[in-house]
């Protein structure tokens, strides 16, 4: 007898509907799965058999064939286990075919018959249009986001069997856990002094400009970077869903269900290319750049990252997404993040000045690790130094994040009126329309170009930064010389000889 159960599998960060067809026939007992299953999917055979037996149900001693359709989409993971088990029970006649008529099934099975959560529950449930969808109880909060009122959370195979047989009702969904208190984000008021770096942070947050902090160890680069998320506005609903979907597909913890705050991802500098941009042998899973989408990607010790890994970031920096090709197909992951990087000016950290113990050659080599095109994409390059304690006493209290966040939100709102997510994304004709230069500003830029301080791309980037600076001040329409000069000041050049050169 034949049974067809609806389920879904992940392709990239999107769910893809799958029909699990189970055929039970007389013959020599056996169990085959066809239709592009990957290794963990093929292992479903053993889990399903054990789970059915452990649930005190009957394992049919017959020839069982499972086909996963459509057969051209690679299936991966153990998320189809429960669908296969239900299919076997229906095909064997232990359950009525009618009971699964409009049912979607998603879940991993334990050998004891328990139903476990699957990575990517949000996009998977999203892909299923059935009127009720069975998921693991621990996935219910996330699944509810995609299919409110249609989710049937279960804990074990026995519960599914009884509900479908009509002997017991569907288990009551657990009372929606109140979302755990949002992890408090570190506040900008913790940082005393450092007005330049704080301001650069504000400009970066307001305009979505990528930021590089250069300074000796202990100057507070990491502290600053971690506080960037705190001044970013909440995600919009659409952004929230996208971010949650990516995190769900990447198998990252989703303690509170929907993610509403911009994520902060800080991959270690030993990370491989695949870890950063996404990868895997058959199916490319989202990497750190995708997990950071909508939020901040922080690369500490930028100079220690493999140059090839950094150059792989150029596409996402430019296009807001990353295309990864693997043996079984190509996927596109969202990767629209704000890049914040930190590095020492040289291997010893003192920075090409008198205290520096590095040979001039070592310094040049260290900075040559960053390719020109990559550095060109960083709009703000700022030197950070250890503050002098005596000055800190006079400096007075620092502005708290909430105050900065307000200004940032106002600038972002202006950018949306211009039709961009942030000023950093303004380009070509939009720049001409929304960031006109007055005469003095044109002169300043012309001089900078003539001195070779700016590339053509750099010119465009400086203009977007100047737009943000004007927006932070009073939102005036025209960019003045001082806006452009301030933007140029925030764009130091890396240079082999002296650590950082202004320009």
């Amino acid at each position: 007898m034949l049974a067809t159960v609806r389920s879904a599998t992940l392709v990239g960060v999107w769910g893809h509907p799958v029909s699990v067809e189970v055929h039970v026939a007389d013959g020599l007992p056996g169990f085959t799965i066809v239709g592009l299953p990957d290794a963990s999917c093929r292992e479903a055979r053993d889990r399903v058999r054990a789970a059915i037996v452990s649930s005190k149900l009957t394992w049919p001693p017959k020839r069982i064939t499972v086909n996963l359709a459509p057969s051209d989409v690679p299936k991966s993971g153990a998320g189809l286990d429960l669908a296969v088990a239900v299919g076997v029970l229906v095909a064997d006649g232990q359950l009525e075919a009618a009971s699964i008529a409009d049912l979607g099934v998603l879940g991993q099975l334990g050998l004891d018959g328990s139903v476990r959560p699957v990575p990517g529950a949000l996009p998977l449930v999203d892909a299923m249009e059935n009127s009720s969808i069975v998921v693991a109880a621990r996935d219910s909060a996330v699944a509810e986001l995609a299919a409110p009122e249609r989710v049937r959370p279960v804990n074990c195979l026995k519960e599914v069997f009884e509900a479908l047989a009509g002997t017991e009702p569907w288990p009551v969904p657990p009372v929606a856990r109140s979302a755990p208190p949002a992890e408090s984000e570190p506040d900008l008021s913790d940082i005393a002094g450092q007005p330049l770096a704080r301001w650069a942070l504000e400009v970066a947050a307001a305009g979505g400009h990528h930021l590089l902090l250069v300074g000796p160890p202990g100057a507070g680069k990491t502290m600053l970077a971690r506080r960037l998320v705190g001044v970013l506005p909440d995600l919009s609903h659409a952004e929230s869903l996208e971010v949650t979907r990516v995190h769900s597909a990447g198998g990252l913890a989703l303690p509170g269900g929907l993610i509403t705050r911009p994520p902060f991802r800080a991959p270690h500098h030993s990370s491989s290319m695949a870890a950063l941009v996404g990868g895997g042998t058959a199916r490319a899973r989202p990497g750190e750049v995708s997990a950071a989408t909508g939020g901040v990607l922080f690369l500490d010790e930028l100079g220690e990252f493999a140059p090839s890994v950094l150059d792989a970031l150029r596409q996402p920096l430019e296009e807001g997404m990353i295309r990864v090709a693997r043996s079984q197909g190509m996927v596109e992951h969202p990767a629209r993040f704000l890049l914040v990087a930190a590095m020492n000016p040289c291997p010893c950290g003192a920075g090409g000045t008198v205290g520096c113990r590095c040979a001039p050659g070592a310094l040049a080599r260290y900075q040559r690790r960053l390719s020109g095109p990559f550095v060109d994409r960083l709009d703000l390059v700022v030197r950070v130094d250890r503050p002098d304690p005596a000055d800190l006493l006079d400096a007075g209290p620092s502005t708290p994040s909430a105050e900065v966040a307000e200004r940032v939100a106002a600038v972002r709102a202006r950018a949306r009126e211009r039709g961009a997510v942030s000023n950093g994304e303004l380009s070509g004709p939009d720049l001409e329309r929304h960031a006109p230069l007055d005469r003095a500003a044109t002169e300043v830029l012309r001089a900078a170009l003539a001195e070779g301080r700016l590339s053509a791309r750099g010119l465009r980037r400086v203009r977007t930064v100047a737009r943000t600076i004007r927006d932070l001040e009073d939102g005036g329409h025209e960019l003045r010389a001082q806006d452009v000069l301030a933007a140029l000041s925030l764009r130091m050049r890396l240079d082999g000889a002296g650590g950082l050169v202004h320009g």
Partner: protein
Amino acid sequence: MDDATGASPERGVHAAALASLPRATPRRLERLLGRQDPARVWKKVQTGQMAKWVAGEDLHDIWRDHARGADLDAIAARLESLDAWATTPASRRHPLAFIHDLDPAPILFRRGRVPDPTAPAVAIVGTRRCTPTGRSVAMELGAGLSGAGVTVVSGLALGIDGAAHRGALAADGAPVVGVVGSGLDVVYPRGNRDLWEAVSAAGTLLSEAPLGAEPEGWRFPARNRLLAALADVVVVVESKRAGGSMHTVEEAIRRAVTVMAVPGSVRNPAAEGTNLLLSEGCPPACSTDDVLVALGLATAGTSAVAGSSGAADGPAEPARHAGGASLDPLQQRLLELLDDGPVSLDMLVLRAAAPVPEALVAAEGLERLGLLARDGARVMRA
């Protein structure tokens, strides 16, 4: 003709060949050569007639075998292509300063003109890792002294040495002398190739090292003694407590050559050595005039302008006063804060207690006026 002994043109090929003998230290060569004609000495070495006490038993044979295998034509061609000369005390063109020195230099390689032995000479030395201030002071001193007819001697290294020469060359005054540690055909540091060529063209490039000699560590202390021997006054612009410049100072003191130091900020690690020298009683060199006074070319109290023609007109000098009128109050304030010494831009903004964008624009303006300079980490008065 120089060292005329045989085939013409003779550029001192025998002297050059002697310098290339293995383990030929200046002291051994001095014992070997004395004031004799290098061609005759070369023949003695080749025929094994060299006195055994010159270099000892084993070197005697090693040198003899080396000399027999040497290709004098190749050496001559190399000297020719470089337009270089090798001299010994037997030559009238060998600097007297090196013959009567505590540690004489018996063989010297030269490109460019023969230095004028009567001209006063000042060695300007300092750290390779200098601050922009140090660099510009070295340039001003180089320009001022050269303009006043003083031979500026330096080591052609990165940092202070190179800056002093660049200043002197820009002033187009008295010819300069560069003394290097590697062979004349081994440019080191490679970044100074342009300077290397400019010095040989407009002045003199000297080295004790044979052609092809790499810049090995031990050659630099030896080079430093030549700097001290050539100079009437040694000026240290910026130096750490230990380093090549301090070694030059020791060599100068051994030779009773006046040492002067440029005072620096107590916060500047590159001025630790110079400030130490000052505290030990070394006279300060605050301007070109101070050095000229020490040379006896000017009298104390002469005004900067009257003191010497080129001295006070160093490149940065006029700019310091020129912008004064057009500065806004914030820019004035930033300059006052910078009087305290170099600080990070961040710290400057904090101390100015002004909104960040305004302070950045003010600093940018000062830099355009040439009143403010930056290195990798800090900003300072230019």
